[in-house]
């Protein structure tokens, strides 16, 4: 669960400004302190746009984009947690109304009296309102040349119309992460083994190009091998979170980032990627006190098996251990006590169809104590969606590659999100993008 820590010193001359995660964390403090109706800046006689997020919404995914762009224009919004599927309340304005009409997002015009009624409902139930004040600066870790269609987050951002920058190894090594508040990682292999496709896809153009690009990057940045470069990138990413950044990772980036962080000084890469065989005792030498989410992990030793460790419960590329897909159930949190996990699970459905990825799920028995489970499969030894704090920041991991392409195979056609505008899996991704926009609520004394 989200921990309650000492509040940061008050801002002002000589004070350390609160980090964004502090701000979000304080939401919980405020809520726990008083279950009173939240303080909202209400302009007299103001009219509002309610963006419903229940089954009446005509385009759930673009609704996030409409809200994000409102913030980008300097406007404000409120996230009505657990109210009609996690709706948004935005002061009426021509730009937002026009944007929603263009996007095909349903909005309901409501007056102050209606809003007062909504607030009453929220105050009485397991709901809460979270002010959203500033669009986070979003970065996606990906080579600049990569098309967006093989990365669920980039597809979601492109479809919803949320602006982001692509950054890759050179920028990360040059401390370029400092310019951003939110970072996404998708199917990067931070162990530097090219997703362990080296043997099974040798000779294919895409793999050859990937290898060449990574090797060039390692050389030009002064690293002896690709695995060493990726470990350095992983450390920069950990530092970014430590300083207050928001990290969202999916698929194999989750598992390999953790392995890379735990493997400082340990050779966990196969001979083809760094010229030396993997340390046969690597699993025992890993340092899990340096990672976000997992511990006591056993590495997959075979370079021919496209699997990294026993973190993944489904082992899609390991036929004897491959497990079938089920469905993940989102946890219901107390909105007023735990607003952060509540934000991350806002949805119009509680059950999300599972989907494979190189890392599909996370074994329960490899999770560190204190990790918040956001979604799991009932009775299964794995979980799907997890979250936690690290230093001043937070991380969230979602297993799987593409929520609307459950069996995803290399070479599959890209997913067209216009055909999945109500995708509950994609909503989880977009919850993460808006979550850093949450504003610290003023404490009532």
């Amino acid at each position, binding site marked *: 669960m989200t921990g309650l820590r000492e509040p940061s010193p008050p801002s002002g001359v000589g004070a350390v400004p609160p980090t964004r995660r502090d701000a979000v964390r304080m939401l919980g403090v405020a809520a726990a302190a008083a279950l009173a109706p939240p303080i909202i800046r209400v302009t007299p006689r103001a009219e509002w746009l309610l963006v419903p997020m229940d089954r009446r919404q005509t385009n759930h995914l673009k609704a996030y984009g409409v809200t994000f762009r409102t913030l980008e224009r300097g406007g404000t919004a409120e996230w009505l947690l657990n109210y009609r599927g996690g709706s948004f309340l935005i002061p009426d304005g021509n730009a937002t109304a*026009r944007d929603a*009409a*263009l996007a*095909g997002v349903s909005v309901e015009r409501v007056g102050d009296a209606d809003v007062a009624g909504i607030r009453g409902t929220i105050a009485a139930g397991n709901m809460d309102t979270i002010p959203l004040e500033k669009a986070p600066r979003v970065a996606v870790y990906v080579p600049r040349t990569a098309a967006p*269609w093989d990365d669920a987050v980039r597809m979601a951002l*492109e*479809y*919803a*119309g949320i602006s982001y920058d692509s950054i890759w190894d050179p920028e990360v090594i040059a401390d370029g992460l400092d310019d951003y508040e939110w970072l996404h990682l998708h199917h990067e292999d931070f162990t530097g083994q090219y997703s362990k496709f080296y*043997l*099974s896809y*040798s*000779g*294919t*153009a895409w793999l050859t190009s990937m290898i060449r690009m990574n090797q060039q990057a390692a050389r030009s940045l002064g690293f002896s091998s690709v695995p060493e470069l990726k470990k350095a990138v992983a450390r920069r990413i950990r530092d970014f979170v430590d300083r207050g950044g928001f990290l969202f990772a999916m698929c194999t980036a989750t598992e390999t980032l953790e392995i890379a962080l735990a493997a400082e000084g340990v050779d966990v890469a*196969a*001979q*083809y990627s760094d010229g030396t*065989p*993997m340390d*046969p*005792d690597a*699993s025992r030498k890993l340092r899990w006190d340096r990672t976000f989410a997992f511990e*006591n992990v*056993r590495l997959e*030793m*075979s*370079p*021919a*098996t496209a699997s990294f460790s*026993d973190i993944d419960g489904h082992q899609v590329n390991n036929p*004897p*251990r491959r497990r079938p897909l089920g469905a993940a159930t989102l946890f219901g949190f107390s909105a007023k006590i735990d607003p952060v996990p509540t934000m991350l699970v806002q949805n119009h459905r509680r059950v999300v169809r599972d989907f494979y990825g190189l890392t599909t799920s996370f*074994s*329960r*028995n490899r999770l560190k104590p204190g990790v918040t489970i956001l979604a799991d499969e009932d*009775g*299964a*030894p*794995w979980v799907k969606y997890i979250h936690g704090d690290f230093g001043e920041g937070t991380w969230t991991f979602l297993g799987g590659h593409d929520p609307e392409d459950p069996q995803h195979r290399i070479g599959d056609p*890209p997913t*067209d*999100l*216009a055909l999945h505008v109500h995708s509950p899996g994609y909503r989880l991704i977009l919850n993460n993008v808006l979550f850093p926009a949450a504003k610290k609520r003023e404490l009532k004394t």
Partner: protein
Amino acid sequence: MVAATLGGAWSGIAAQRITGELGRAFELERAGRYARAADRYEAALAQNPANLSALLGLERVLVPLHELRRLVPLIDSALSVQADNRSLRALDLRVWVALGEPDSLRQAAREWVAAMPDGPEPWSEWARATLALGDRAEAQRILSRGVERVGDAVLARDMAELSVQGADWVAAARQWHEAVRGNSSLQSSAVASLTRAPAGVQSRVVDVLMADPTEPTGGRLAAELLLAWDRPLEAWVILDRVLPSDRSLASATLRRFADRARRGSGPEGSRARGFALERLAELAGDRAAERARIDAARAFVDAGDRQSAERMLDRIAFEAREGGRSAGTAVATLVGVMAESGRVEEAEARFRDWVGRLSPRDASGLRRQIAWAWIRRGDLDRAEGLVANDSSLTTAAVRGWVALYRGNLGTATELLRAAGPRIGTRRQATERTVMLALIQRIGQDPAPRLGAGLLLLARGDSVEALDTLEAAAGELTVRDGRADLLGYTGRIAVETRHFERADRVLRSVLSIDPDGVAAPAAEYYLARTWVAQGQSDRARDQLEHLILTFPESALLPLARRLFDQVRGGIPQ
């Protein structure tokens, strides 16, 4: 005797107990309770140390528990009972791989080789296990030693797979060839493996397989690969040379080739399929031959090779006539091909010759097809004459279009409406609906110039059609549907890629009647014009205007989709 009976009863009880333990172990494993599952598997092994299901289950659950070493003494016990069990030996090797102990792996493999000196399995599994440890060169050496001991053919497949993993496609082709020669059931595996060869080495792979052009195995492999690489005609040329002499084998090969050629794209694939089916027909009996020729004719039609299609169909019709049989499908296909290729008189003559022996459904369909062929020739009288005595709803549509091309809008409306939305294909039904919507807005009847323009369009003369339709619109007032006809003309201009004209015509719609019924479609097609010309910003502005100004328009889903594509929100 008593002892034997008791012994039998005791072993039955023991077997039941093992089954019970295994069942419980499976359930626990499925629930993710690996530690308890491991205990149950071990309990089953206590009853029967060589129980393979228990050993494999234990392997599965001990991996996540990081306790695989527990399996080592149990495998030793099992091997002491069944030293020549291949699954046990393979498990032994896998465990040493998982434990990362190459020396123990080597020792275990050598023991297996000693136990089975003439078998290929120990070498094969040993090489795989070594590869799993990441040492490809050593795996290669092991296989080479195996080849020396047990011969090429049985290990050729393993050698080939290893070469594929090392991207040595030329060696892989040679080794797969060898493997398939030794065991023809490996052909599919060989094709699946070699298909992944990059474009740059594909021709070298074919050269290796065809080193001896008279040797059939390499030829068949090469043909299948060329087919998979979308080079179907080259594939056919090779296959034709190496067909098996055995009739049933040859038929099976041809059928397989034809089926795979269908999956390919483009006319070359269809043509190759046609050739294969034609050859198949020569090998088959009467009925099967007829079916193969019909399929071949269709394939040739798809390939645009009408001459070959007719050759097939003439043969069927001739044989049917000789045998006094009905050849409805063949004749229908033949007449259809003739009509499509513009030989309408011949098609109609052949139709009249056979109509008595065709089913009513086939006859009606052909009548429509020939009528449309006359329309495309511009002979409305003959088209009308052909369907005059057919009062079915399906021909009502044809008569409706003929009336429209004559400019008789009232009659056309009546007949097209009578045809309803369910006659013909979905596309035909949509075209009728669009046309009905348009002519209902036209306040002039008859409208011969409009009819002439639409006929030109049906005949494929889009430039003349657009000129005529624009002129027809010029004869109308705004109240009589001028903007609507111009909007339709603009849409046709976009679809036939006359973008300059589309731009001009669609803008004129918006200046004549900016808020009228035709305006949303004009805006949408204008946006498509700009997208096609690479002017995304203009398209985006136009679509924004359309979406915001006409939020109730039926075109909105299309407009939003195009808007998303233009701004890069979804793949093109």
